[in-house]
Structures are given as C-alpha cells and as structure tokens.
C-alpha cells in the first residue's frame, strides 16, 4: 500500500465498509436526468452519481478531509480556466472500488493510486491509457527526475505521473529534549546505537516503534527493513529483492530483519518493548517523543509524520520543538540510500477533460499550490524550495531532490499478496525472533506463488 496510502488507508477501517456500501449504490438503476434528478434522495450520496454532466471529470482517490480540500484548491484554477469540473470520489478501499468499477465497465477517468504496484498490474491488463501521447514528453522530462519516470513506466510506455512524494528517511526527535540531555544527532548507525545505550543508562527510552495500523498493521516495520536493506546491501540487491530475483531467505534480507531486531529486541530500547511495537498505533506513536516526560526520544516514520505532529501540537516551532535527522548510513559503501513513495496518477478512461486535468496536475504550478499549504512534497523538480511553508518541509524536499540513491517503498512495489505477507512476517518476527528462518521461508513461499504465476513485469 502507498506510503501515503498505507496510513490513510488504515486510519479508519470502518470507512472501507462504507465504501462497500457505496459500491452497492452503484448497483442502483441509473438516475433520471434533468430536473427530476435534483429531488432524488440519492443525489449527493455517491459523488459518482451526483455529477453526471459531461463537463465533469471523475477522479477516484484515497484523499478525504483536509487533504481533499487541499487537492480541490489545486484543481480550482484549472476548473476556472477550462470550464471542466472535478467530481472526486473518495474511498479508503481503492483497489476494491477500482477493480469493481473496471469490471463493471464504468471506470473513473482519473485514478490516484497509492502505489505503483497496482499501476503495473492494471497496465498489464490493458486498463490504463498510456500518457506518452497525452503529455508533452519533452516538458515532462525537463520537470521530473528520471527515477520518477522510470517508476511510472511499464513496458516502454509512461503510464503514471508521480504526484505527492514522501521521504521515508526521516527520524523524528525533539531538539529541545536532545539539548536538555546533551545528546547530539547521530551521524552513523553505530553512533545511533551508542546514543540509544546512553539514553537507556540515564533511565530513558530511546525508541518508539509503532506498527499498529488496522488492516495494514506492520508497514512501519517494513519501512525499517527496506531502508536497512538499501543501506546495508545496496540498491542492486534491493532491486533484485523486490523483483524476487533473490529469495527471502537470502543473507541480505535476513540481515535486514536482524538489524531491526537489534533495536526491537534489546531490552529497554523500545517504548513498551516488542508488545508496545505491535500494539501502538503509528499515529499515536508519532506523539510519544513529544510528551512530558518524553515517552521516547526517536521515532523513525515517513515524512507524513509532520502532519500528525503539526495537528496535535499547533504551537510547536519547526526545527526547535520538533525536527528530523536523516536515517544514518550503516555500511560505508552504501551510504545515504533513501526510500520513499508517492501517489500515482493514472488515466483510467480517455476523455478530453481527463487529459486536460492530468496535463495540469503534472505542472510545477499545480504542485506549488499544494506545497504552500504544507503536508506536500512535490515530485516535480521545478517546484521551488521557498514554496514550502516551513523549514522541515524544505529539508524534506531538499532531501528528496538531492538524493543519490532513491528507491520506492518496496512493499508498495510487491504484489498485494506478497506485501501483506511481508507485513505479517515483520509482526511475527517482533513476536518470536527465534523463528526468523521459518518466517522468511513462509514469505518465500508466498513470493513464489505471487511471482510464479506471472505478473508480467
């Protein structure tokens, strides 16, 4: 699931079921058009039904609440300029809703997927419209780093624009608490462990690791393992791991788990110990370093953690009360590999309005509008750093723009089934580290099953 998508998806599971109910509403007979429709009680119930004029472009995505408002703010100038309007259908269960609508022959024009794994699957099934002819490719190449374009390419064709990017190389801490105890930001993995020992010896808890996320519980742990693998074995092994060219039982992957275990299973290292890891919700965990006294000193969580911190501590000064330091290098040879992700915009139905919208969204101007509001790091490299509202957002944008080795969140690239098995494996490893061999073996079996049947990649 999408890095962004993952946490959103899981924030409220009940909404997924609401999405199922919404699906049922699609089974209703089509509404009469014209004046009668205005009095129809179903008007406004499903956005898909509400706007049926041909000037409306249907968009399916995960965003709701303030994120959706920010996105609507981005789209507003386009609506004004072109006379089109956007009808956004918000769902927490995007895969299920999109699968069903595609099967019913009624796809939305534009879909915003949480991860490129699903994009490849859809492109493979011929459900996506290639963007090479829709977008001005010369302009696109000037605006996007080639790593983003590679990620959006299936076969020889570009199918996706990456939109809202996230760094997953951020360890959150309170500079105030660090200063009060005389701690300094660690520059290497070893220094980070030394700092952890020092915090323990002074009666504190160095880490909070919060893996609970409803149906997607475990993804914060897979984020750990991914960045560890990238920084211990390098991008080449990382790619081969994601493509399942090396087995899950390979030493590099084993080392990824064990390196995480070095933190999770060291007594007094983690808030609540292994049980705390499994039972603490990742959003609640984001607050733990900022309680008084601090429940922990460091939290490794994607860049979106800033949104949670800002929401619960509106008076915090960025850089003073909260900040992040980059995930430290582990093996000198593979220093500063960065993982991350982005929302993926694809064209699921080719209409002039949809083409116009996707062209607009790919521009730096459209992305700057959201960047200014916060909680958004642009994938378009021509978005200026001073568009961002605070120093933390600028640092993250800088980190993403200047990275040497960048890799997309691995569990997002795997087939859903394997991603799920990976989530589950991390939970079981936290629970029973002695069974690591067995756990990796069972993920390997799922991987053989998932890739063996041919995913066309």
């Amino acid at each position, binding site marked *: 699931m999408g890095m962004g998508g993952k946490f959103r998806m899981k924030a409220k*599971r*009940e909404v997924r*079921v609401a999405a199922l109910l919404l699906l049922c509403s699609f089974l209703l007979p089509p509404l009469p058009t014209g004046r009668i429709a205005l009095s129809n009680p179903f008007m406004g119930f499903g956005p898909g039904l509400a706007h049926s004029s041909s000037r409306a472009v249907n968009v399916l995505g995960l965003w709701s609440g303030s994120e959706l408002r920010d996105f609507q703010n981005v789209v507003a100038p386009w609506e004004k300029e072109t006379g089109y309007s956007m009808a956004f259908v918000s769902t927490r*269960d995007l*895969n*299920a809703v999109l*699968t069903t609508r595609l099967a019913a022959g009624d796809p939305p024009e534009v879909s915003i997927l949480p991860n490129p794994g699903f994009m490849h*699957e859809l492109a493979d*099934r011929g459900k996506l419209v290639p963007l090479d002819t829709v977008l001005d490719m010369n302009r696109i190449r000037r605006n996007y780093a080639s790593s983003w374009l590679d990620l959006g390419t299936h076969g020889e064709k570009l199918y996706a624009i990456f939109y809202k990017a996230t760094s997953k190389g951020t360890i959150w801490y309170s500079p105030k608490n660090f200063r009060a105890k005389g701690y300094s930001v660690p520059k290497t993995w070893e220094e980070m462990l030394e700092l952890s020992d020092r915090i323990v010896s002074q009666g504190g808890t160095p880490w909070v690791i919060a893996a609970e996320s*409803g*149906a*997607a*519980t*475990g993804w914060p742990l897979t984020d750990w393992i991914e960045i560890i693998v990238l920084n211990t074995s390098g991008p080449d092994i990382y790619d081969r791991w994601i493509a399942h060219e090396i087995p899950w039982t390979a030493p590099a992957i084993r080392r990824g788990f064990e390196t995480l275990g070095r933190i999770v299973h060291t007594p007094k290292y983690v*808030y*609540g*110990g292994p*049980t*705390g890891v*499994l*039972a*603490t919700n990742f959003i609640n965990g984001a607050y733990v370093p900022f309680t008084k006294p601090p*429940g922990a000193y460091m939290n490794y969580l994607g860049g979106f953690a800033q949104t949670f911190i800002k929401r619960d501590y509106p008076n915090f000064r960025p850089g003073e009360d909260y900040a992040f330091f980059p995930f430290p290098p582990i093996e000198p040879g593979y220093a500063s590999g960065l993982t991350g992700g982005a929302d993926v915009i694809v064209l699921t139905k080719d209409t002039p309005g949809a083409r116009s919208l996707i062209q607009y969204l790919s521009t730096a101007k459209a992305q700057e509008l959201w960047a200014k509001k916060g909680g958004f790091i642009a994938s378009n490299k021509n978005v200026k750093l001073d568009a961002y509202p605070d120093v933390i957002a600028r640092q993250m944008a800088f980190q993403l723009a200047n990275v040497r080795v960048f890799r997309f969140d691995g569990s997002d690239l795997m*087939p*859903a*089934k394997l991603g*799920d098995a990976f*989530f*589950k494996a991390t*939970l*079981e490893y936290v*629970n029973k580290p002695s069974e690591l061999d067995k756990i990796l073996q*069972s993920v390997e079996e799922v991987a053989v099953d998932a890739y063996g*049947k041919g995913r066309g990649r």
Partner: protein
Amino acid sequence: MGSALFFLTVYLIYPILNTAYISFLGKGSKEFTGLSNYWYVFTNADMLAALKNNLLWLVLFTSITVGLGLVIAFLTDRVRYEAGAKALIFLPMAISFVAASVIWRFMFEFRPAGVPQIGLLNAAMDSLPGLEPVAWLVNPRVNNFALIGVGIWVWTGFCMVILSAGLKGIPIGILEAARIDGASEWRIFWNIIVPMMRNTILVVATTMVIIVLKVFDIVYVMTNGNLGTEVIANRMYKEMFNYHHFGRASAIAVILLLAVIPAIVFNLRRFRAQETMQ
C-alpha cells in the same frame, strides 16, 4: 410463483452456480485449473489457521451466546425490571458490527506499563495491584478470545429475546406444579425448561452456527487476521479484493456455503416439524 422463481434464479441460483464455476478457474478466471484452488484452501498455512480459528469461534461463540442467552432469559423472566434489563442486553444488536468493533478497540486499547491507560480494560488492570496491562489484540494467548468476546457481546441479546419468547410459551401450570412438588429452581431449569424449549434452543443454536461461520466484520476491523486471528471469511475478502485471485476466493465461498448447508437443512427440518405439529 413464477416471479419468485425468477428472482431466486437471478439473485441466488445463478450466482451460486457461477461462483462454483469460477472456483475451478485460475486467478483471472481465464484458464481451467481443476481442484488446485481447493487444494490451496486446505493446505495453505494461513487458510489452515483460519479454519482452526473458525472452529474455535464455532464452539465458543455458539455455546456461550446460546447458554448465556438462556440463563439471562430465565433470570430476567420474573423480575420487575425485566423489560429494562432485556433492553440493555439487546441494545448491542442495534449497533453495526463495525461500530461495535471500533468501540471495543477502545475498550482493548493498550499503553505500555507506567503510561496512563485509556482503554477501560487495561485501566482496570492497572488499578489492581500486581497486574500488568495486557495487549488484548496482540497477545496470541488472548487475542482470539477478545474477538470472540465482542461477538458474544453483540449476539447474546438476540438469543436471549428468542429464548425468552420460547420460555414464555411454557404453560405456567407445569412450572407451578413442579414448585408445589418441591422441585428446586435448578431442577426446574434442567428438567422442565430446557427439554420443553429444546426446539427453540436448537433453532437459535443453528442460527448462531450460520452466523459464526460467516464472521468477518469484527476480525476485519479489529485485527485483520494478524497474529493468529485469521478467519475464513476475512481470507475470502483478501483473496478477492486485495489479491484479485477470483478462483481462490470463490473456492473459499463454496466451502463456506457447503459448511452452512447442514445447519440450514437442520433448521428447515425443525421448522417443518413444528409446522406439522401445530
């Protein structure tokens, strides 16, 4: 009759036959794969765990909802505040399972020892000396029981209402005669009420069996089957909507249907027997 048959065919018979057909096809329903989906269902470790858990649900959920429902129906039968007490116990039925699961997630909320607890159960544990907070949904020793407990909380009221109606159908004269003969209430319960209500109890129990085999919402919302809490219906949802493996999802659906059929047949037979008696 004609239209009834039409709707049955379109909404029931056709989907069942089609599901059975798809269960013999591969992931994208393109190629015939024989029994391989069924083979998967009965050999895959996750599926086996789900089958085992469903068995646990079947035994505990059915016996406790029916047993507790019967006891409550009996106990509240002759108290003044009967209506109020029953209404309270029946109330959870009015809440959707998803909402109930969300409520119970708060009840089970866990914070590490030493941090103020916000979950009711762990706050209670915390206030008692010598007890540590328990991660109810995480600890594999208790998590299945925690989930089953939520199901029992929701469904006991339903059993109670039906059983209470059955209880009221027992002629008061029989009970009074027993009391005059000096039978204890315990004896009346076991030797008169339970045998006379046998049919009602069996119908309620089979209904619970059908419900428990389909259990999904509670598990999906609270743990999503993690850490050893998987159940069959959640597995079906995952295969269908997350993994898009229509063949396996259909095979699980067919197996669920087959598992429910004996309970349905039993229920219908009872129902018919009762009809002819009257």
